């Protein structure tokens, strides 16, 4: 339907083909998850003060299914007036009801949200895959169950805040403005809303403009759960709407997850105000693979680190640092493993890599692929077929790259891994830390002491050992350096929504 260019550029592998044949014989038949029972409205209004209300300027914008390039629905564009209305509703709910509510009743509401998310898990998963392009296997098994888990976890804290920080008196902050990204729409919503509500705050949340569907379905859920009006307000829109939230005078805290560039703009505009803030920004995680690692399992870990969610993960491990004596073997194994990744329809249960989230991101990743080639890197892409419509990119490896290459330095946010080798542990640590980011990293070795030595030398908020991309509501998450300020998850995430006196 659209004239936008979706054809991807393919790069000729610069290395000989694998000895193993994964293509012929016994192909899996299509196994699509049915979306027949999911009702998507033609357009969604703003959710303010417990009601769905039309945007003041009556403007709506389209949301596109990135795997088919077709329109999914339309969302309302919230202007300054709408944001102000939402903040007023949130303030009213905060003063009148929510912060004074018996903490165990507050907990009850949050538990109810968690249970209802579980009940509606299938609908949410399908919606997430349609609107955002991620494979149903991930939205079904990761995004939605984890989102529910965060609500369950923070629900439990609601009536125990007095005990969470011994010697301190916890007080709610007030109205929280929350701006979330498009890579894990519902999960990021849960990370933001669950702790905020548990601590007695009310929220105005803005989902990303390309992936607002599950946030609006969540608004319906909140309504069905009978949450007091105005406790949760959801306003849709693009960057300007976000700016209205950040700059609104009656907001007490800003929580933002997104790009480092936008994070810097937000931090500048918050300077001189008394708003609290947490920023969870970009990353360029290093995966350090030692010669004594269990290699086949490490390869799986690397695949999970970079190709999970099309590489649209802020904590993705996008730089592989491999010890030189096993480098050739590991690269060969990675290339073979790429051949078994299935790229295609996000709703197919066998799809490993879905669609790139938007045309904008598709173009961005492709420009990095071109850049890598120009910089002299060797590029390898799997030979799998990809659908003609929609935004798809084959999983990609860049070898023969160095620390000075832009593809090694900058966050690509796509299914692209760079591979460098190292000789000593010190060299690996130095290379891993030589980045303005510091969100996450991984270490693979069979030796426990090496995990502690290297892990504690990495300037990175999260370090996974012999695994990657594992999340749990009890564990804090956040970055060093340009990867952000503050922590989400666990007790740390709780304190970010409280005044501790």
């Amino acid at each position: 339907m659209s004239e936008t260019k979706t054809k991807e550029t393919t790069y000729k592998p610069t290395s000989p083909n694998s000895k193993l044949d994964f293509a012929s014989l016994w192909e899996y038949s299509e196994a699509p998850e049915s979306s027949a029972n999911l009702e998507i409205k033609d357009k969604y209004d703003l959710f303010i003060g417990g009601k769905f209300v039309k945007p003041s300027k009556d403007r709506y914008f389209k949301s596109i299914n990135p795997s088919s390039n077709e329109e999914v629905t339309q969302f309302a564009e919230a202007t300054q007036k709408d944001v102000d209305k939402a903040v007023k509703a949130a303030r009213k709910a905060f003063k009148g009801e929510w912060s004074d509510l018996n903490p165990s009743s507050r907990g009850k509401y949050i538990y109810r949200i968690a249970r209802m998310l579980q009940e509606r898990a299938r609908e949410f998963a399908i919606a997430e895959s349609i609107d955002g392009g991620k494979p149903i296997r991930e939205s079904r098994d990761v995004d939605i169950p984890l989102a529910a888990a965060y609500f369950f976890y923070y629900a439990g804290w609601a009536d125990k805040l007095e005990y969470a920080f011994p010697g301190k008196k916890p007080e709610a902050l007030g109205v929280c403005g929350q701006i979330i990204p498009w890579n894990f729409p519902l999960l990021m919503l849960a990370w933001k809303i669950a702790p905020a509500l548990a601590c007695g705050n009310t929220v105005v949340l803005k989902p990303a403009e390309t992936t607002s569907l599950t946030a609006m379905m969540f608004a319906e859920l909140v309504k069905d759960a009978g949450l007091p009006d105005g406790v949760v307000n959801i306003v849709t829109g693009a960057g300007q709407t976000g700016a209205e939230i950040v700059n609104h005078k009656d907001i007490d805290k800003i929580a933002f997850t997104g790009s480092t560039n936008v994070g810097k703009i937000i931090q500048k505009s918050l300077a001189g105000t008394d708003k609290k803030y947490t920023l969870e920004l970009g990353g360029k995680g290093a995966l350090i693979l030692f010669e004594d690692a269990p290699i086949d399992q490490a390869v799986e870990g690397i695949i999970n680190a970079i190709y999970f969610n099309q590489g649209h993960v802020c904590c993705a491990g996008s730089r592989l640092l491999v010890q030189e004596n096993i480098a050739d073997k590991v690269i060969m194994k990675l290339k073979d493993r790429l051949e078994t990744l299935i790229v295609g329809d996000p709703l197919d249960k066998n799809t490993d890599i879905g669609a790139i989230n938007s045309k904008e991101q598709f173009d961005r990743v492709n420009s990095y692929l071109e850049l890598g080639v120009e910089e002299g890197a060797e590029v390898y892409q799997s030979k799998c077929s990809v659908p003609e419509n929609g935004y798809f990119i084959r999983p990609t490896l860049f070898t023969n790259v160095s620390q000075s290459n832009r593809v090694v330095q900058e966050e690509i946010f796509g299914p692209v891994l760079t591979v460098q080798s190292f000789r000593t542990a010190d060299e690996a640590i130095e290379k891993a830390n030589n980045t303005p980011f510091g969100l996450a990293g991984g270490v693979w070795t069979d030796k426990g002491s090496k995990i502690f030595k290297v892990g504690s030398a990495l300037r990175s908020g999260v370090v996974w050992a012999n695994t990657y991309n594992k999340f749990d509501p009890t564990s804090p998450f956040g970055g060093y350096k340009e990867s952000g300020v503050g922590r989400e998850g666990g007790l740390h995430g709780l304190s970010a929504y409280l005044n501790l006196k």
Partner: protein
Amino acid sequence: MIQNNKFEVVPIDRVAVEERVGRLNKRSIKKESKVQALKLALSMVDLTTLEGKDSEGKVRQLCQKAKSPHPSMPDIPSVAAVCVYPNMVRIAKESLRGTKINVASVASAFPSGMAPLPIRIEDTKYAVEEGADEVDMVITRGAFLEGEYNFVFDEIAAIKEACGDAHLKVILETGELHTYENVRLASDIAMEAGADFIKTSTGKISPAATQPVTLVMLEAIRDFYYKTDKMVGMKPAGGIRTAKQAIQYLVLVKETLGAAWLNNEYFRFGASSLANDLLMQIVKQQTGHYQGPDYFSID
């Protein structure tokens, strides 16, 4: 004489192996790919009877089943082999004359391997002379666990020699090896010593075949192939009873070793009750209805 240190311990991460299997189990095999998989799995079955009370009659009936698993559906493939004790090889061989179905014999003091090597070699030679096309030997687990890797290597090499032209499957009895590292090491030793196939279990020890153990062995086969260009086959045996399990095993093979291993020359199931469940599912796919178990012969 080979030194012990020839065999390097390859580290295996238990958690990650099991996670990988869990992920592969999520593959959704439907429609045409399911029919294809069911027939493929049936053609890979080593129809097995290994009991003290086995009779000539039972072996003959099993061979009949092997040739024509479900006579009312003629396009169903025959199984790969019939697997019996050495003294039943002659009967099986006679019953299967004129077919492509192999006779496999367990040998080398199956299932424990607790006999002196010359006797185990004699046992093997006897099976081959009786007409066995394939020999399923066991390793001496005691020696392996003691770290006597040379002993294990040598016994496999000696029995391989005794096999002559017969294909050798080396049973590691993974249920007695305790760790994935040991499974991997035993696989490497067996392949270096000349195994044509590596096989998980005798079926006499629990646990028998599991998917994580099979994945570790498939990865060993892959590394051996990378290194030597030699394709070694894989046979999980024991505990595989349902078509669903069998399809999960095929997914492991497909995504670890690829298409070249997806045939009965390189992959087998050691099982007895699996065949009927596969048949039941094939009939279901073709007719749209399940038939009761009494519609399938029990041999």
